[in-house]
């Protein structure tokens, strides 16, 4: 097992190198550049800027220089935001997105699994219909609708919570609740549906019939015999979902004015801010790779048939 973990961790390095390389070249293949505005810059200014950022060097030279910097942990200067470098923007915003994401995914896991299980156990009852109806809403209604609706009800009408802001705006933890709920909704829906179908499938399996034939109570059958089998597909969904949610959501950040990482995914692309694009891609990839690795480990803990050597 230890050997396997070490091997997997070593495997992360080439994976990331490939991802960085591909994204480095892809962003440069796209037409336009970071300094192409609506109004063309004077030739001299443009040449100066390009010289400063070495944009006119041969691509391979740029690539080599960039890789060297990345390996030292320096993601380079942003081509658009002049105040700080890419590292600064990421380290400033990622923790905010992580706090929000962890809270949101915890909400969706707890309530998703609970309502999915209840729905499966009471299949075709009102509990089932209610939780699946809620799940359909969660899957089909976009975040930019759910967010403002929550703001309207809980902030404007009831006045219980602030409409927007973050810790620094003075409302403390209260500001986290609405965006976390908004963000949790979609994953809650998916997890609830996944849990329901997975549990139904498990409950129909032969070994559950054996447990019933032994005279076990339904509650102990569910918790002792059906739980692990039910959790397997949810765990594999949670890996990528977790990576996605803690790297921020541009919609929720906009609606609730949260200084998170999500907006850089979108804005860096608009700005053709090469270094920032590749920077956030690296952050996302690292988290995703780690998550998938953790999923595999949890899998082997849940299912004795899976062993890694």
């Amino acid at each position, binding site marked *: 097992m230890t050997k396997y973990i070490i091997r997997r961790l070593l495997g992360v390095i080439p994976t990331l190198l490939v991802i960085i390389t591909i994204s480095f070249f892809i962003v440069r293949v796209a037409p336009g550049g970071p300094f192409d505005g609506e109004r063309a810059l004077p030739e001299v200014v443009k040449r100066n800027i390009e010289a400063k950022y070495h944009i006119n060097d041969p691509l391979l030279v740029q690539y080599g220089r960039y890789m060297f910097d990345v390996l030292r942990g320096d993601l380079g200067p942003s081509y658009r935001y002049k105040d700080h470098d890419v590292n600064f923007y990421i380290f400033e915003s990622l923790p905010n997105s992580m706090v929000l994401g962890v809270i949101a995914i915890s909400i969706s896991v707890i309530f998703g699994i609970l309502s999915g299980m209840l729905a499966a156990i009471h299949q075709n009852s009102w509990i089932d219909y209610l939780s699946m109806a809620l799940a359909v809403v969660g899957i089909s209604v976009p975040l930019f609708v759910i967010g403002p609706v929550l703001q309207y009800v809980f902030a404007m009408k009831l006045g219980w919570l602030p409409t927007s802001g973050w810790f620094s705006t003075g409302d403390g933890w209260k500001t986290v609740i609405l965006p976390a709920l908004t963000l949790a909704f979609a994953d809650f829906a998916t997890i609830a549906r996944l849990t329901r179908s997975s549990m139904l499938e498990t409950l129909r399996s*032969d070994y559950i019939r054996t447990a019933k034939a032994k*005279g076990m109570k339904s509650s102990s059958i569910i918790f002792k015999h059906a739980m692990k089998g039910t959790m397997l597909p949810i765990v594999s969904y949670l890996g990528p979902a977790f990576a996605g949610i803690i790297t921020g959501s541009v919609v929720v950040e906009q609606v609730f004015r949260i200084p998170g990482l999500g907006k850089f995914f979108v804005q860096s692309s608009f700005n053709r801010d090469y270094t920032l694009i590749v920077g956030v891609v690296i952050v996302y990839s690292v988290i995703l790779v780690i998550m998938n690795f953790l999923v595999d480990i949890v899998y082997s803990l849940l*299912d004795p048939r899976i062993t890694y050597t």
Partner: protein
Amino acid sequence: MKTKQYKSLLEVKDLQTYFKTDAGIVKAVDGISFDLNEGETLGIVGESGCGKSVTNLSIMRLIQSPPGKIVGGEIFFEGLDILKLPENELRKIRGNEISMIFQDPMTSLNPFLKISTQMVETIRLHQKMSHKEALAKSIQMLQLVGIPVAEEKIYYYPHQFSGGMRQRVMIAMALSCEAKILIADEPTTALDVTIQAQILDLIVELTKKMNTAVILITHDLGVVAGMCDNVCVMYAGKIVEKAKTMELYKNPAHPYTEGLIKSVPRLDRAHKGRLFSIEGQPPNVIDLPDCCPFHPRCHKVMDVCQHHYPPTKDLGDQHEVACWLYVDEKEFPND
């Protein structure tokens, strides 16, 4: 609370289990009756889909509902109607008084739990024992079914055993509470031929030792001959013939039974040409008309067979058959 007066250990009376499907109502089990006495071994034989397994799942009330439902009949265990018992009373019977071995040992044990967990929980469910005592008992049971180094292997997961070994574990688990009835639902169908005999011998040996009554479901008449005291032959959800095993083999009354016996390949008789087989397919049990379901395949078919289901006739010596051949022509319905 048990009624003291009862004829047999298990009495099944006119049991009907139907399944609702989009295509119509499937009468998987349609009015079957049989008795099982203490220590007796009863074989239930029939083709796939004739309702053998549904019969026995009905006895344990393990029919998946929906779509299945026991719509009629009574099942008395020691004089107690199982079909009327509340859930918590039923659980005291399941696994404790009546236990089951399933067809596929690969999927019937929980792959996520150690054998020790699964065995200990069964024993502790029905007997007042500490974990340690139950574990000792489990190891003892595993030794009894011939699992080598049981005290070590009990901590294995099911996937670490072969199919035959898993079925041994199932048998050990099923007998660990000294049940009065063991229902074995095609216990050897999923196993290698070489293992089949061992598993059957094991079931016979242990149940004789513990005086457990056995219901053996199978489609293999050879297995029945070697193991059972009595046999029920099922066809399309009904019992068509019931007799003592020797009697059934010597004097099969129903043309279907006759065909079944003929189609068992035998090495001790010189065969010319092809193996005997019953022509045609088993009927679709959805919306079956009121006729003998076997008549399209029967070589002795008469006019009456196509319009009426035959009454059950007693041929003496507990030999019963549902076939118009044994009904006096004067009793034929006239229409």
